[in-house]
Structures are given as C-alpha cells and as structure tokens.
C-alpha cells in the first residue's frame, strides 16, 4: 500500500540546526555577554559565594515562571501568582502560631497553592472567563485575604528547621533552592518537551479550536496548568517565607510582572503557542545576572527594572524592526 514512488523526508533541518538558529542561542549569547561584562566591571563578581547568593535573585521567581510558561504557551495567563505566595505564606504563618510542624507547614503551603490554582482554573475553564481579568481579580482577592488576616502585622517564629528551604546549602556553595530550581526546570522541560501533555499544550496555544476538534480535552489541560501554576506558587512561598523568616501581606509584591517578563524574555510568545523551558532558564539567568551585576555596581533595583523593561520590549521589537527594514 505504501509503495509510493516519492519519499517525503522526515526533516530537512536536524533538531540541532534548529536550536542553533533559535531564540535560546541568541539569549545564551546575551547571558554570556553579561557575564563577561560583569566580571570585568566588578572584582567581586567572580566570587563563588557571591554568585551563589545571587541565585536567590531568580530561583523562586523562576520556579513559578516554568509553570507560567506552560500556561502562557497554552494561551492563558495567571497574574495572581504573587498573591498566591502571600496567601500561602500567611496560611503557613498562621499555622506556626498553632504549633504546626515543618512538615505540616510545607503541606499547608502546597495545598493553599493548589487550592488557589484550582479556583483560577475553575473560573477560567469551568465558567469560560478570560484569564487575564479573572486573575487580576483573584490577585486582589488572595492578597486581600492576607491583608485581612495580617493587616500591618507580620508572622514570625518559624521553626528553625523550616529555614533550610530558603537558607540551607546542599553541598558547598550549592543552595537547596538552586537544586530545587534545577530539578523543577528539568521536570518542566520533560513535561513540555517530551510528553503528550506538553504536545497538547502547544496545540492548544496555537489553535485551541483545532485542538478541541482534534480530540484534545482542552478544558482539562488548562485546568491542570492552573493547578500547576498554583502549586509552584506554593513551592515558591515555602522557599521565600523560609528565606525571609517572616510573613507580611506585602510579600512578593509585583512578582507577577517580573515572572511574566522572565517568561516572555525566555522566548515564550505572549499570544501562546511557542516557547521552551531552556529559554526560560536562560532568561532567569539573564535577569539574575543583570540584577546581581548592577547591584555590585551599586545601581539601585529600580534602574535594573528599566534595563529589564527595555530588554523585554527590544528583544521583541528589534527582530520585527529588522524584518520591516529589510522589506
């Protein structure tokens, strides 16, 4: 039956060729460039302990960014992630007052994250509401609950072994958070790039209607993605709370936008359908290196945000300007 005279080749470009011409390699060059500039600009840069400290600039945000990347690839967004951190952290803080153990605190953090994600997921997939508005709403709601509970107070007194998640070292200069970040990156890379679920995410983001018409359970996939984003927010809440040792309702304010920036910088299309986990990993390093390098030069955080903002727009604008100029 398949005695066709003509063979269609599987591929014209090898996957490696594709990768070399990709966004990720461009971003990698940027990262290396920043690394080199930084090491010349400040004598303190190439100190392993400083570098190790610098990873805290991005590890917690990046954990959420991986889940957010999948969500944005599928065509949705979750702006409530930082508010979920606040709520999960508040819940853990309240539990501390009741004498809950470290294991219990971790469980509570994860469960609150999952519950918030489920709530978002229900509103978006169950009721068919646009995720950007829904999560602007839940962002106020979740953090608002923290404010109701805490007001201008703070929870402290976390058990001493709880500090490990945000302050502990696994080996030499390698922090627990960095290891967790790496493990999560690998897990998400596997989910997105090597499983049927990941393929469905791309299909939905490119054309949700055609994906539905191809027998993909679109609502279910999106719901799971909201759950995952909530869960990762819970994980980040554990790390951040442990690192800070206290909970205020304003914890992680504005992180949602930094996380979205990280994802978009990593080459994920905000319109959905394309992007990769390695891209987000490199973007996390780029943002961390910029922040750390400028910090060593005593440039304040707010100016770094200009750099990040300009980076965000120019990485998208420049290729378009280039192709407009050529035609």
């Amino acid at each position, binding site marked *: 039956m398949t005695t066709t005279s003509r063979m*269609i*080749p599987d591929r014209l470009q090898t996957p490696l060729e594709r990768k070399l011409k990709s966004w990720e390699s461009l971003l990698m060059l940027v990262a290396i460039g920043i690394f080199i500039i930084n090491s010349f600009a400040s004598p303190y840069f190439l100190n392993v302990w400083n570098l190790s400290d610098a990873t805290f600039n991005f590890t917690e945000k990046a954990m959420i960014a991986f889940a957010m990347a999948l969500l944005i690839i599928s065509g949705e967004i979750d702006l409530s992630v930082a508010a979920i951190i606040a709520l999960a952290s508040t819940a853990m803080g309240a539990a501390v007052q009741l004498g809950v153990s470290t294991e219990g605190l971790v469980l509570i953090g994860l469960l609150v994250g999952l519950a918030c994600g489920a709530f978002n997921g229900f509103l978006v997939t169950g009721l068919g509401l646009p995720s950007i508005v829904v999560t602007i709403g839940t962002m106020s709601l979740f953090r608002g609950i923290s404010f109701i509970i805490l007001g201008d107070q703070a929870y402290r007194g976390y058990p001493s072994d709880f500090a490990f998640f945000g302050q502990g070292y696994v080996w030499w200069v390698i922090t627990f958070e960095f290891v967790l970040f790496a493990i999560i990156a690998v897990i998400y890379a596997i989910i997105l790039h090597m499983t*049927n*679920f990941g393929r469905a995410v791309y299909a939905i983001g*490119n054309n949700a209607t*055609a994906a539905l018409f191809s027998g993909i359970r679109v609502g279910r996939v999106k719901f799971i993605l909201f759950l995952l984003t909530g869960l990762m927010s819970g994980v980040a809440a554990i790390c951040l709370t442990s690192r800070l040792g206290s909970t205020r309702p304003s914890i992680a304010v504005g992180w949602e936008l930094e996380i979205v920036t990280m994802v978009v910088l990593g080459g994920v299309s905000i319109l959905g359908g394309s992007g990769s986990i390695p891209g987000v990993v490199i973007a996390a390093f780029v943002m961390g290196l910029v922040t750390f390098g400028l910090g060593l030069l005593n440039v304040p955080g707010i100016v770094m945000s200009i750099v990040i903002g300009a980076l965000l727009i120019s990485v998208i604008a420049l290729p378009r300007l280039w192709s407009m100029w050529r035609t």
Partner: protein
Amino acid sequence: MSTLTASDIDPLLSLSGVTKSFPGVRALSDVSLNLYPGKVTALVGENGAGKSTVVKVLTGIYQPDEGEIEIEGQQVRFPTPQSAESAGVTAIHQETVLFDELSVAENIFLGHAPKGKFGLIDKSVMTSRASEILSGIGANIEPSATLKDLGTANKHLVAIARALSIDARAVIMDEPTAALSQKEIEELYDLVEGLKAQGKAILFISHKFDEIFRIADFYTVYRDGQMVGEGAITDVSEPELVKMMVGRDVNQIYPERDHNIGTDILEVEGYEHPTEFADIGFNLRQGEILGFYGLVGAGRSEFMQALFGITRPSGGTVKIDGAPVTIRSPADAVECGIVYVPEDRGRQGTIGALPIFQNVTLPSLARTSRHGFINLANEFKLAREYTERLDLRAASLDTDVGNLSGGNQQKVVIAKWLATRPKVIILDEPTKGIDIGSKAAVHEFMAELAAQGLAIIMVSSEIPEIVGMSDRVIVMREGRIATELNRAEITPETLVSHAAGIREAAQ
C-alpha cells in the same frame, strides 16, 4: 463560450484582466466582469470559484495583482474600502459585517456619519436618514435599537440599509437570501426591482438557480478562478449554466465504485438542538458514502458538530455497532470511532504553526507514545504511513502545515483522522477551496476508504460531488431532514428542489 452580451448599453463598472494570488492558491486568474446600469448581473460559480475574492477586489479589501477596474470608462483604483465607497461601489457581504454593540443607525452610517456642529455626529439627522432608508426598503426597525437585539433577518436588512446609505451606483449582493425566509426573499426581490428602477447596477451572487433566472438580466460564470462564460440570462438554460459552472460531465471524473455496502455501524435517532436542528435520525452502513446536501445554513455542519461532541444536543441517541454511546466532547467521539474533517480548515482543522507530523499524530499520541512520553520515531512512522497513502506533497514532514496549499492541508487533516483508525468519518465540504488535482485525489481516496469498509458521511454543497460520490443522500432544509434519496433518485434537480423546498420540481 456562449454568445457575448447583445447589449447596447455601456457597462457602468467593468473589471478586466484581474488576477489575484495568495500563497499556494491563485484565487483569480485574468477574470473580467461587467455591471450595467439598471440591470442585475448574476455571478455564478461553485464554492472556491473566486466569487468572494472578486467582491473583495471590488470593495477595496483586496488589491488585485494585475488588471483594471473601470467606472464609466474611467480607470479607478480602490486602495481602501473607503475609496470604493466614495466611487459608489457598495456591498452587502455574505457574513453580516456589523457591530453588535452599536445602534442600528450607527451601523448604517459607520464611517460616513452626517456631521453637524463642531464636526460632531449629528444624531438627529443620522436617525431620520436611517429611518428613511429603512422604511424605503420596507424594514420596520427602530434606528436607535441596539443591533444585538435584532434577529438575523433584520440584521440583514440593516446590512442592506448600510449599503444603500452611501449614494451607490453599483450594489453587490453576496448571497443575500441565504439567511432569509421565503417571504423575506420576496421582499428582497421587490427591493432589487426598486434599485434597478433607480438605474443602479447590481451584482447578484447566488447559488439558487430559481433566484438567478427570476431576477438576473445577465450572467457571468466563474470556475476555479477563471471566467468561463457571460451573456444574457435569456440566452442560457439552467443545464447550460450548470455545465459551465462545473465544466465537465458530472459522472465521468468521479471514481468508479463497487458499492459494497455492509451492516449498520452508526444509528442516530431524534437528535435535536434548541435552535439549530431537530428530529435528525438516520443510519449509516459500512462501506457507504452518505451525502448530506442542503443550502448553506441548512444546519448540516451544526448537526455534524453536535454528533462530534462540539455542541451539546438537547436530545437524541447515537448507537455505534448497536451499542448506545454518549458523546460529550470530541475526545469522546474519537474514542467511539467517529471523526470529523471540518469545513473551516484553517480554524478547526489544522494547527498551522505546528509541523505536519505533529498535526497528524495529535489524536493518536496515546498510540505512538509510551507511558505518556513522546516517541518521535513512532510519530514519524505513523505520519509517513498515512500522508503517503494520501499522496501528500511537502518538503518534509517537519514542514509547518500553514505553509502547505489548501489541498495538501486537507490531506493532512484526513491523514490525522485515518491514523486513529476510525469507524465513521465525517467530511464537511471536503473539497471546498482546493485545486482540481487535489479534489480528484480526495475523491479517489474516499472511494478507496469506502471500499475498505469505512463508513463515510460527506457534507457537501456541490451538486456534482454529491451526485458523483454518494450512495445515499439526506437533504436538509432549515435544520430538519427534508428527504432521503437512494442512489437512483439522486439527480441535481431533486437535490435542488428538496433543498429549496420547491414542490413542483420534485417530479
């Protein structure tokens, strides 16, 4: 070629040598078109013949690659929709291109509203002129009503009023009666007569022959993006027109089939939906091609999408191999062995930015993967097997589907479903907008599949296709089954008359 127009009148608007290409398709190739003052010219052609494209060229939405437009002998160009309007060319589009949130008067005058003091829109003038135009076409609609509160027929009248609100010399009506009831159609005819009396040149696009012979003065026939005939309507007969449209003898180019029909595989009973269809019941057998014919908007696609689990029916049962099944989603349908090749290929069929092999394997990933992990070698193998069966033309299986021609995209969609080894395949307008060569390939393949025992439902608005391919035909009209025809009864005349609800023609 039929005799040329024996008209003494000079055309008001004429199009000559117009060519328009899109990536992968040549939509118009050196076509011409003439519209005469006070006359109706019917533009006829099958789906994909280039009628919609020519309307878009005439209304400034597309720019032709080559060719000229003349109005009263003066060469004109329409770089924007406004320039076409200001030249007096206006169109009532097939899809109602209106704005739900705006009022009726605002819809009519959007883009050319009467201005009063300080350049502000003069609402009272706008309202009174709107009600003038509306009452002029016998529409009883309040100009201040919000459009979304109107029914389909009234929305259509607003679209007509919009077209008449500019001082048009040429009016294009793109399938104006598709959504109207018989009574409303009669009113539209009166309206057309009124426009003729005012000396306007009218382009009338329709699939309904009774309509064309009743209202048109001239005809122009397009086929596959080319003009194949024009003349006075009195000089042509219906079969001649059909022959020009189709361009070949209906039976010959369709594949020979041995009609080896087996046992019942799909039974549908009492399927209904609150607004889209009611009382649909039929059975489908192995190796059978069941045609679904009807006018555009008869509810065929809507029913098929309910059967495929996209929309929820309000009642009815489905049995596969005699066992009742519940279909709540396309995923359920695929599990039951029912697959659907949609009409709207770009939106519902293909994922343009993903490569061919990923499109093909998307519903079959459970089979090519292990424990949910992608296995690329298996995927390429499966994709290759089915795309080669369909003789797909592509640079590689890694090519994005969006870069393929319409015909090859359709082959990808069909390959995608065959790879799931379905029992029933529903093809909704399977050859719409694809080139002749691919069309024949799709038809050949359908015959081959039927011979292998697959049960096929083919929704089609193309009479030759229905006649040439079907073992049995169900004709739908206004959301219901109008009739069921067995093979001996399938003729263009019976199909048209049942679809349009014309009694005397049903012999």
